Structures are given as structure tokens and as C-alpha cells.
């Protein structure tokens, strides 16, 4: 569903991401982890068409993002860590607006359903300035799900959520994967990655240092047998 080949992104002389290749299959949750400045955000932005790669190709649902960005973007949803919303649109208006941009079918039915699912029904007429951070985050998720995307990209999805919200968010991610979506999740919360991701990709200084299930990664490092993802991460990135 998500296919990345040789992704490279330079900022002048700085190499943010170098020759990164990976894929995310339908139903899979791939965890993207790495220390600060490893290139996670650049990777996510490239995947969602926010920035253009210097080299390499990205395919979403078999559509080349560089060649046909409109069709490719129509199949993906990006949930950033910081919820950016239009100050002057209400919750429901955000959903209507997004539905129209994504040409979402059955939006009239999906909007109330999503509002209920994400517990936003009572705030349907509220402006973003009246919402708590958690609710703003939920609204971004609702906007991302309105067109039933085949691929979902989450950047730090648990930021600002309360314990109940965290549980629901984890459930939403797992449910979407079970329904056949390919999910890429970037987070510093390694226990979250360990809990819900089927595979893990570890980035450091723009390069991939490991990818696979935790047992697969451990197979290459017998010295780390029985260790947690946190230990593996620290050992592989040299942060320990």
C-alpha cells in the first residue's frame, strides 16, 4: 500500500533522509522511531506530499506521489502531532470542508458517525478556539478518516490526550489496520510502538538502521535477546 524507494531529502548541505526504502502492507502498523533530528518528520512530510523528495519515489496504493499527487494524496491521511485547524470553521464545518476536498462519498452519513465515534457530537458547532487540545487532536483524526483512507500516517498521536483518549486512540489505530489500512506511526513512546506496531523502522541521522518485527531485529543482535524495544533502540542508535 505504501512503497518508499530510495527516499533522499537534502536541505542545502544537510542530509535529512538518505536512501530510505520501506513498504507498509495493508493491515500493517509500522512504527517509525528515531532520536531527535533522525529524519522522521521529513519522512512523514515527504510521504504526505507536503515536501518533495530530492531523490526517490513514493507510491501510495500503487500511485506515484510525484507523478499523480492528487490521486495519491486522495488515498492517504496525515495526522500531525500539532493539530492545525482553521480558526473560523466549526467542528462540523471542518469535516464538510475536508469531505469535499477529498471527494468523500457518503459524507452526510459519515460525518455524524465520526462525530459520535470520536465523542465530538456535542461540540459540532464549536470553533477550534473553544476546544481542548485533545479535542482538537480528535477533530484532526476525524478529518483524516472522513474519506476512508487506505493509508494512515500518524505523528505522535498520543500527544495531549488523557488516559481514556489514549486508549481510544490506540483502539482507533488498531481498528483501522484491521479494516485493511496501512498505518505508519511515528512516536517517541516506545511502549506504544511495542504495543501496537507489527513492525518497527529505526532511523538515525537520516538512515535506516533496522527494520522488521522485534524478533527479526533481535535475530541480528544476539546480545540484545530478551531486551525491550527501548533497550534495542538505545543500543542501535548509540544513545545509551
Amino acid at each position, binding site marked *: 500500500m505504501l512503497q518508499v524507494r530510495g527516499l533522499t531529502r537534502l*536541505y542545502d548541505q544537510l542530509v535529512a533522509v538518505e536512501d530510505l526504502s520501506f513498504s507498509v502492507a495493508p493491515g500493517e502498523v509500522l512504527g517509525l522511531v528515531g532520536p531527535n533530528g533522525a529524519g522522521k518528520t521529513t519522512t512523514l512530510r515527504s510521504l504526505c506530499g507536503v515536501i518533495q523528495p530530492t531523490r526517490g519515489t513514493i507510491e501510495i496504493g500503487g500511485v506515484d506521489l510525484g507523478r499523480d499527487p492528487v*490521486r*495519491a494524496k486522495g488515498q492517504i491521511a496525515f495526522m500531525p502531532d500539532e493539530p492545525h485547524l482553521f480558526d473560523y*470553521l466549526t467542528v462540523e*464545518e471542518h469535516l464538510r470542508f475536508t*469531505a469535499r476536498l477529498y471527494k468523500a462519498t457518503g459524507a452526510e452519513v459519515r460525518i455524524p458517525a465520526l462525530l459520535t465515534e470520536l465523542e465530538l457530537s456535542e461540540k459540532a458547532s464549536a470553533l477550534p478556539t*473553544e476546544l481542548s487540545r485533545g479535542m482538537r487532536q480528535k477533530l484532526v483524526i476525524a478529518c483524516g478518516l472522513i474519506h476512508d483512507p487506505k493509508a494512515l500516517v500518524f505523528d505522535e498521536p498520543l500527544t495531549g490526550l488523557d488516559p481514556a483518549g489514549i486508549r481510544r486512540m490506540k483502539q482507533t489505530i488498531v481498528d483501522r489496520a484491521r479494516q485493511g489500512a496501512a498505518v505508519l506511526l511515528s512516536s517517541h513512546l516506545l511502549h506504544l510502538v511495542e504495543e501496537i506496531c507489527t513492525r518497527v523502522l529505526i532511523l538515525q541521522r537520516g538512515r535506516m538502521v533496522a527494520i522488521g518485527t522485534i524478533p527479526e531485529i533481535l535475530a541480528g543482535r544476539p546480545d540484545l535477546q530478551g531486551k525491550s524495544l527501548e533497550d534495542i533502540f538505545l543500543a542501535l542508535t548509540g544513545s545509551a
Partner: protein
Amino acid sequence: MIAAALYLSRRTWANSLRVRLLRLRQPKYMVAFSAGVFYLWFMFLRRGGPVSSLGLLGPETRETVAVLFLGVILVLNWALQTSETPFPFTLAETQFLFAAPMTRRQVLLFKIFRSQMALVISAMVTVFLFRRGAWSFVTLLHALGLWLGYAVLNLNGAGMGLLRLSLAQHGVSGVRRRTGTLIVFALLAGALWWVGRQDIPVLTTAFTTGWRAGFAALSQVLHSGAGAILSWPLRAVVAPFLATTPLEFLAALPAALLVFGVHVWWVVGSSIAFEEAATDHAQRTAKRIAALRAGRGWTEPRGSRAKPLTSAALNPVGSAAGAIVWKNRLGIKREFTMRSLVLVGVATVVGVMSLRGPRTSSTDLLGAFLLFGAGMVTLLGPLALRFDLRRDLEMLEVLKTYPVRGRTVVMGEVGALLLVLALTAGALTTAAFLVTITNDTLPALADRLAILVSALAGIPAVIAVFLLVQNTSVLLFPAWVTVGPQRAVGLEATGQRLLLTIGSLLALVFALIPAALLFGAVMWLSSDLVGGPWSVALGAVAGAGAVGGECWLAVQLLGGVFDRMDPSSAGIASS
């Protein structure tokens, strides 16, 4: 405590100056700073620069004008102030001061003291910019007098803020707590009504004769009877600023200090728990500053407590550009408050009534005002309203994730404002035509109709060019344009705006050349066929068509720029 406030102000000023100086190492800031310095020199410092028009008036008229000015500002502050906090604390101040072992009064005193430093600098700068002749000791006294005026205004606003907060917090018991203040205000209102009832007919007659007679009559009102008592605090505050000798200044100082002292006592004596409101306000301000520093903008949640204005729901099926137009149209609608409309309405009515002469009918004046409004909407609307990429570029990361082409985004962003402004200006122009339809002194009706057609064709074309020039600036030079609803301040920002304005005007002239050529050609060719104003109308329609073609081309080009735009390198990315 005063020492702490002094230390904080001193270090803040020194560090901010250091940061600004270091920033000048970047060429774009250096160029902008140089342009700002040039602007400052050209406007205010070179010989023959503007002089204060107040200084050209006689002493009595000067006092009357100053009192009137101060009074109007005070009334506007009372009537229109919506700030929820008596003093705008910064987030750091709320964190340090509110948690410190200080009484509420000490916190207020600290804040009042700190505010004065900024006011002193503002007063010095104002007097420096608008002084006549060289610096002298009297200039310094003027600055001190102006500072007193600023300080009283500032404290008065704070006192009103506390009063409003008290009423909001305590309801009926708040009214009881503030009985003294409310009685003073009731007495003031009653006295004003009494003075107005007696003197307004006299003043109206005097101003009809001429403005000198009018001001003389107003001065008389301010110095006699109840008017003298009512205006005393205002006269006391402006007197030091208007003093022309050190002796006059010294004589005026005690009364002004008394008014200042009463205000300090009023504000510091308040026991209102303002901390929560101040913290809320500080958090919002901090968000706005953070957004500005990131090159983005932030919207003050206007009327966020009120239910948003409802609007026709967007049909989920349709064009993406239409959705963006709908979104921005909604933003424009929500930005306009009832207060704005009331102010515009009152200003129009007052203007029409005051300019009405013996030979001018109200409908003619109304027509003139409507035409004036149409002109303002056409020429200033595209600059003042920023509901397009100038505002939405802060959402670049979100906009770029949408499955739409850049040209669609640009078309939608520009389209909303074009639609709203063109419809408004067109409606005003048509209304001006209609209200003067029976006027025989104007050109023939058919000719006026032709002029109306020309205007209706030309208005959208001019607005479209203005909007596209503005949006081109933000797309091509995002680091030079303030993105978001707020405007940047400072000498560099002034320089940036100056350079961008010059660039925009050049672009505008360049863009209008083909349209002007076509307009001239069609007008010349059709002049023998239809003649006079109708050939102008045909030319205008043809010119508007040419502008339409240019705009279409510009949207395609700008769409490509948008598609290639990188939030990180544009300085817009949030992280």
C-alpha cells in the same frame, strides 16, 4: 519590588536590542532595516518634514482639540474595549509574579511601574517624530506631558477592565462592590446629558458658521458651568503637554499628577481577582507571539464564547476550489462583528448629516458616500482583508496534504475575497446609481448607466489584480510577508512593507498595461459606433476581459509555485 521591575525592564530592553542587532547580519533584515531608516528619515527627520498640525492652532483651540481627542478616546475605550484583562501580562510575568509571595496590590504596582517605562519611550518617540524645530528643554517637557496623558489613559483602561471583570465575576454583588465607581459614572453620564441638552444647539449653530466659531463655542462650554467641572480632569491631563514654557508646565503639573494619582489609587485599590483572566490572556498572547516568531500568525478567538454565525452547509459534493471559497467566505463573515457594522453605519450617517449643505440633498450625499465606500472597498479591501493565502499560508502543511492541485488552492483562496469584495463594491456602486437616479443635475441617465456598466466591469478586474499581486508576494517571498492575521512591527517590518508596496505597485502597473491598451483600442474603435460613455463601457468590458485572462494565467503559474513550495525552506513549517 521597584528595583525588580527596573531590572526586568532594563535587561529586557538590552537583550531585545542585542537580538535585533544580531539579526541585522542577515541581508534581508539589513536591507529592510535600511529601507525602514530611510522611510523614517524621509517622513520625519529631513528638513521640511511634517509638523504637528496641533502646533499651528491657537492656545484655546489646541486645548479644546486635545480635550476632545482625549475624551473621545476615553469614551471609545469604555464603549468598545473588549479586553478581558486589566493589564496585558506576559506568560512569564503570570508565571513568576502570580506565584511569588506578593500581594495583589504589589503585583498591580509592579505592572503599573513597568508599563510606565514603555509609555515614556512611546511619548519620547511621538514627540521626537512630530516635534517642530530642534530639540529643547520644552520638547522634553512635552514628552513628559504626553507620558502623563498616556499613563492616565492606560490606567483608566485598566480601571475599566477591573470594573468589567468585577461585574462579570460577581454579577449583582459585583454591582454592590463597585457602587462608588458606578455612582461616579452615573453622575458623569447625567451631567454630560445635562450639558449636552443645553449646549448642543449652540454648538451646532456655531459649527455651521465655521470651524473657528465652533471651536470657540466649544472652548466656552469647556470653561464655564457644568462643562468646566466635567472637563476639568481632561484639561488637567492635557495641560502639561500643551505648556509652552517650563513655568507653565510646572503650574499645570500638580493637577495632572492629582488625576494620575487618583487613577493609581483606583486601580491599585481594586481587590478583584484578575489573575485568571490575565493568565488566559497571556496564554493567548504567547501563542500569537510564538506563531509570529515561527513566521505564521494566530487568530484572536473573537467571540469564541458566542455561538458562531451559522452559514449554509457546504455540499460535500462539488469542486475543491468552491470549498476553499466557502471556507474563506465563512471566515470573512465571522470576522465582521455587529460592532463593526454599527460603527460603519454610524460613521456614514454622521458623515452624511454633517456634510449636508443648504444645496446638497441627503440622497446626493448618500450617493457620494456609497461611491466613496465602493472605492475604498475596491482599493483598500484587498489590502486590509487577508482571507486568502496571506492568512492560510500558515496552514501550508495542511493545505499541501489535500488532494488538490496548487492552482485550485490559489483559485479558491483568491476567489473568496474577490467574490465578497466585488459584490460589495458592485452593490455600493449600483446603490449610488439608484439613490441618485432622479437627480437632474447629474449627466443623462443613459450616460450614467454606461458609467455604471464600466464600473461594474472594472471593479472585479482591479480587485483581482490587487489580490493576485498580494498573493504572489506571499508565495514568492513568504519570509518577507507577515503570514496570518497579525501584522509584524518594528523598523525592519516597516522597511519590508515599504519595499513590498513598491514592488506591488510596479506589478500592478505592469499587469494593467495590456488591459489599458485593449481598453483604449476598443474605446477608440467603438467611439464612432456607440459614442461617448458607452464606448468607455465597451472598453472597460474588454479591458476587464484582458485582466481576466491575465489572472487565469497568473493562477496557473502561482499554482505551480504552490506545488513546489516547501514549508521548511519557506520558514512556515511549525517544526
